[in-house]
């Protein structure tokens, strides 16, 4: 499917008797090719219909549930039919009203509202108009025809598919999320995947989730865990009475391909809670009581040892933090003694969010995350999506930019397999049962190789590189180095879930 899209791009010009370039926006045409795939090459993974109004990208399409299909190991979200899509990007591309209505279904419109194709607030011009408006006249144009913008449009188009007359956009895995909205706990749909997880790992500030308006993973659940999400919503209601006495389930989901849902939700919840708690609590170390302070240090050490990944130690550390902050009914006085009036900010969060920007609010949210994540971690189902309790210590080996680390979630194994072009599902299944260890090599940006090792001896059994080739020398070296570490640890007692 070929699209002809009006775009705006920036050009610069020099006026006569002037050395300082000036800029203006010009109109151009971008051509994008959307891949067309036969219907029999895809399979429907999920049917979703979110009616909360808070997840418009997962709402129904044309009065029926939205399809999320699987193709090439990637999930694709249904947008609309081809005719409507073409009308949107080719005919209504300059209509601000049209943007508002279909903002979340337009792959050329990033979430911040600014479109790659057209930004209605920009005044565009032409060479002739610019020359007319310039008193001195224009002596030189630097106009590349918007090639950069056009390449960007094509990159976006590469993330789209046309299947059976419908347009699809690459998406992340759908999941349940629990949030508060207008005084009630709402269980609705969201999307979470490697991109969001990567953003989480770059977490530099406790305010990140607030400023980015992202959903905290502590409140996210695997798409197959609707009941757990509802239970979490009820627990939040008990934590934050009286604002959440009702729980509303605002979405319907039908799972047609359960194997495509691999979100390690409990691991993500622990990781996020740990990071957030550390960022907020580290400044409380000098004034914290001894046991609370040592719990904070244990959290730091667990984060360091596991590189921020959800390990058994990290789960214990987050539980240790959560132990110092119990639900309101359980230990009001204890909490106030330990963390002063900071934790109570959590209770004021729902009443207008007046304290959202304050450190106290961040502390309250961090403790809340720890409490929720800790409960989830202790109750996580043994469904093979993560096997942190079987992981060796240390979890990773670093040498310069190269890193080898043990894979402990199915989601990571899928990501690893996707990047290497090999299916590692069988290895992941064996790793989740403790029959081998799955180790990945990274060059700081992406995966460069994988290896499986005997859990008892640490001996490497198989190595895989990119596109079926053997791993590079650097990747092999770091994999062998980590395997040697595992061999040194062989025979150590294993953690029990």
């Amino acid at each position, binding site marked *: 499917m070929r699209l002809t899209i009006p775009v705006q791009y920036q050009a610069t010009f020099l006026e006569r008797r002037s050395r300082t370039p000036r800029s203006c926006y010009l109109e151009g045409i971008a051509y994008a090719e959307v891949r067309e795939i036969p219907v029999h090459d895809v399979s429907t993974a999920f049917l979703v219909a979110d009616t909360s109004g808070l997840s418009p990208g997962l709402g129904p399409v044309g009065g029926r549930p939205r399809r999320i299909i699987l193709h090439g190991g990637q999930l694709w979200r249904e947008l609309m039919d081809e005719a409507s899509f073409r009308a949107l990007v080719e005919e209504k591309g300059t209509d601000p009203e049209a943007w508002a209505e279909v903002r979340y279904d337009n792959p050329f419109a990033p979430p911040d509202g600014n479109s790659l194709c057209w930004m209605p607030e920009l005044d565009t011009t032409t060479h002739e108009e610019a020359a007319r408006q310039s008193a001195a006249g224009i002596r030189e144009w630097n106009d590349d025809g918007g090639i950069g913008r056009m390449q960007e449009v094509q990159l976006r188009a590469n993330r789209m598919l046309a299947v059976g007359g419908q347009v699809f956009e690459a998406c992340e895995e759908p999941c349940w999320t629990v949030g508060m909205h207008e005084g009630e706990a709402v269980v609705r749909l969201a999307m979470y995947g490697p991109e969001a997880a990567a953003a989480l790992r770059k977490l530099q500030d406790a305010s990140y989730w607030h400023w980015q308006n992202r959903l905290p993973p502590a409140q996210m659940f695997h798409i197959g865990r609707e009941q757990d999400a509802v239970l979490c919503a009820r627990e939040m209601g008990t934590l934050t009475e009286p604002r959440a006495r009702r729980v509303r389930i605002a979405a319907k989901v039908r799972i047609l391909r359960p194997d495509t849902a691999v979100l390690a939700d409990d691991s993500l919840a622990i990781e996020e809670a740990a990071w957030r708690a550390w960022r907020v609590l*580290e400044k409380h*170390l*000098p004034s914290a009581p001894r046991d609370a*302070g*040592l719990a904070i*240090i244990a959290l730091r050490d667990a984060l360091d040892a596991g590189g921020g990944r959800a390990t058994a130690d990290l789960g214990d550390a987050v539980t240790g933090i959560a132990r110092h902050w119990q639900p309101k009914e359980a230990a009001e006085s204890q909490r106030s003694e330990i963390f002063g009036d900071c934790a109570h900010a959590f209770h004021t969060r729902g009443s207008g969010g007046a304290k959202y920007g304050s450190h106290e609010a961040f502390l309250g949210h961090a403790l809340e995350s720890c409490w929720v994540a800790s409960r989830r971690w202790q109750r996580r189902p043994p469904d093979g999506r993560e096997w942190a309790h079987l992981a060796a210590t240390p979890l990773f080996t670093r040498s310069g930019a190269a890193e080898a680390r043990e894979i402990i979630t199915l989601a990571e194994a899928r990501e690893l397999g996707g990047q290497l072009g090999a299916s590692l599902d069988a290895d992941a299944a064996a790793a989740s049962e403790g029959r081998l260890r799955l180790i990945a090599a990274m060059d700081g940006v992406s995966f460069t190789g994988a290896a499986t090792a005997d859990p008892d001896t640490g001996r490497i059994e198989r190595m895989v590189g990119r596109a079926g080739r053997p791993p590079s020398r650097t990747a092999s070296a770091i994999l062998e180095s980590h395997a040697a570490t595992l061999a040194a640890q062989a025979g150590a007692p294993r953690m029990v879930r």
Partner: protein
Amino acid sequence: MEALVTFTYQVGYVPPKCHNTRSAHFRGRTAVEIAELARADAAPAFRVASGSNRRFAALEGRPRLVVAHAGRLWAEHGALDVFRALLAAEPPVEGTPFDAAKRLAFTGYDGNRRLLASDTPASLRRQCGELRRLEDDGGAAKTLEIQRRARDILIIGDTVFVRTCEPIWRAANGRLAVSAAPADPGEPFADAGDLYLGSHSACWRADRRDEALASAGKPTGAGPVADGGDEVIEVLDPAYVRFADDSRALAAAAGWIAATLSEHLAAMPRWVVERFYDIREALAATGGRNGPAVVAAVSSFAADGADGPAAEDAAAALARAWEISASALDRWDRRPADGREWQHLGLPLTATLRPNRAGSVREVLDLEAAGVLARAVGADLAWMEQMAAGGRARLLAVDGKKALQTPTSQAAVLVVDRDGMPEVAGSVVREGLGGPEPFTEAAIGHLRQAAGAGLPDDTAPQRGPRT
């Protein structure tokens, strides 16, 4: 002796057709009674001369005499006739003891000469007309202050003495100088930027000049140390040398270590964090002073070594903290066995501090603290000091605080151990505060609480008196 003191004080007034208040300085006068004493009633304690400390500057080319009376030290100020002349001078001049601290009798006001001339309400009205408002208390506040200050002056024979602190040696940066003993260390952990370390670790008792001189060059490394030839402290009676220099140095070091570590805790290994909490809790248990818990906590920190974090600034802070702890402990171990402190006999919980309730209690573990307590209760506590120093009883300073509506109330309670149960062997309560019951109850309560408290680290080496 009754003396007439002239002083100036500030008033506020609003001139006609004005809204804003102006200020003027009026002149006031008050009579004060200055205590007189026979020369035999004051015991000579020190003879001091200093080229760097104005308080102890040589007087007419000779050292000043410091005498002891009523538990306090009094430094020679000058001849009585000169003092009388200064007080009688019109206008009042600087140089009197009243002027020493807060310039109570100040005359120079170079801001507004016109207002300075208006030294009475009448002259002000002559200048400005009928005033809309005049806020004039007649100098009542300053009168009270002058009368309080008069109690710090003593006339012995034909010489005037002014109350002072114990003279000590301050050795720092290659220089040895006479100084006055610093005030109570209070809460050393309160502020990392505070100079408690410098102000206490560099201080040495008057009779330890050689040690002070030896330590003066240490911080700066090599180089000759000024001998301080014009700095003189001659101890006339060793009984008045009470400054707990080693104790203060160790407590200051503990406070400094805690404050320094607290800034880098997030980058410190777990053992450092544990030692930090040990020191912090020990300081809390002793009210910021030295005590067995502090000695144990600092010893534990010093014993664990100085290797730790990778972060450069944190590693530097840890190394410095370790160096300070080793130095302070070295000094503590080398302290003279002269019975001026009995820290090793103290309870781990040295103080129960209840700022908003009655009965803040602190165990007295050195002669300096005993002296402070004796002054507070207004009695000679020598017999209590001897029993406490001998390990036969515990001497406790009890502060009544708000519950008794007497913010400065103090009592000394001596408690002995009778078959494992604490029993009050004697108590002295500040005059006018009624019976001793509330104080003795608080003291017994503290001892019961202390009996249930352990040292932060029971395995830490205990440092008894030097043998």
